[in-house]
């Protein structure tokens, strides 16, 4: 039977209800993520060619799975790899490549456009890129500085996730107060923190 991922609205509702998502950079962290309250597990490393069993375990734990196509091994960030991930049962795909967002949506997965905040002068071009790519979600890194820079940020028409250096409950609260839908964090103590 072919797996059908939830639509992006459902994905967003899951995160909104439980905003601390687990970001894992190695297989050894999967068990802890599965045991946590985190609604979504973000896979940021590992082998993108052998994800099937991992995805099935995540779904069996009633969680959703998002994969960063730019960072996992074995895959090139292009339309074919997006199709591969869809076939592996992935619910959402993250990428810094805006041109992939349409392909991700076409495969009925949630499209997450990662935006790296380096300098203020880059914000305008980033806004333009988001406007063209039309993702379902924007993920901002480093998310921990979101409360400090929210005043210079444009308003996006889609929800914002924050990731990067978010390591305490206070960080989470500050980021959510700044308007983020949720956070992605590798700090296990925060996985599933309400």
């Amino acid at each position, binding site marked *: 039977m072919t797996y059908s991922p939830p639509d992006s609205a459902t994905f967003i509702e899951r995160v909104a209800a439980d905003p601390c998502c687990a970001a894992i950079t190695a297989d050894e962290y999967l068990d802890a993520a599965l045991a946590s309250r985190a609604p979504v597990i973000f896979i940021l*490393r590992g082998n993108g060619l052998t994800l099937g069993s991992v995805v099935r375990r995540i779904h069996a734990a009633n969680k959703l799975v998002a994969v960063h196509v730019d960072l996992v091994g074995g895959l090139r960030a292009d339309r074919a790899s997006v199709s591969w991930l869809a076939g592996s049962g992935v619910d959402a795909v993250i990428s810094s490549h805006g041109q992939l967002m349409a392909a991700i949506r076409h495969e009925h997965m949630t499209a997450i456009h990662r935006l790296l905040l*380096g300098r203020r002068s880059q914000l305008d071009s980033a806004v333009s890129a988001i406007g063209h790519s039309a993702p379902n979600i924007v993920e901002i890194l480093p998310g921990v500085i979101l409360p400090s820079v929210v005043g210079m940020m444009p308003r996006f028409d889609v929800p914002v996730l924050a990731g990067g250096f978010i390591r305490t409950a206070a960080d989470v609260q500050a980021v959510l107060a700044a308007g983020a839908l949720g956070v992605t964090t590798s700090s296990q103590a925060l996985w599933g923190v309400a």
Partner: protein
Amino acid sequence: MTPDLGPAVLPSVLIVSDGRHSVYPPPGIDAGVLVRDTDLASLVHRANADDPPQAVDIDSVAGLGGDDAAVDFVMGRLGIRIVLTRRPQLAARVAGHGGLGLVHVFAYDSTGMSRSLESHPGIANVGSVLSPGLVIVHLRPEELDRLPRPVVAYGLIDELDDARACGALADSIVVRPALAARLAASLVPA
């Protein structure tokens, strides 16, 4: 061969300039000028003006290559002693010429920062440009210790309080002219 201009001295505050207009550091703070996002002709013009810059973000200069010849030109012909770059080998060449090379360390998350540090040359007179600089206040002490000194906090420092907080941890911060003026004014006794 580059002329001996003496050791490179990193100011506590680097004020950004696009190289097309004069930027004068305000009195009262230890500040210099960093040229970025410019083109080669503007950089040459600025370097030959009466207010030459102390530093250049060499990767952001349109028309300038990312190779040894570019470093030799910037240092030997233009006399700029502090060079920021993404390329570790260029920073090492700057250091070899007696200047200060500063390699960008991209700190968008902890894993990425560690990977970025892996390519740092780790030699004398090659420091770090922490990007974005504002994140420095969120680093753990051991993460800060891993950054080869001197450390320049570069990016998204737009508020006075942020500038002070970042300046307390970094050897230098990169700010816009208006914030540099506010920093200087804040140090003037009421």
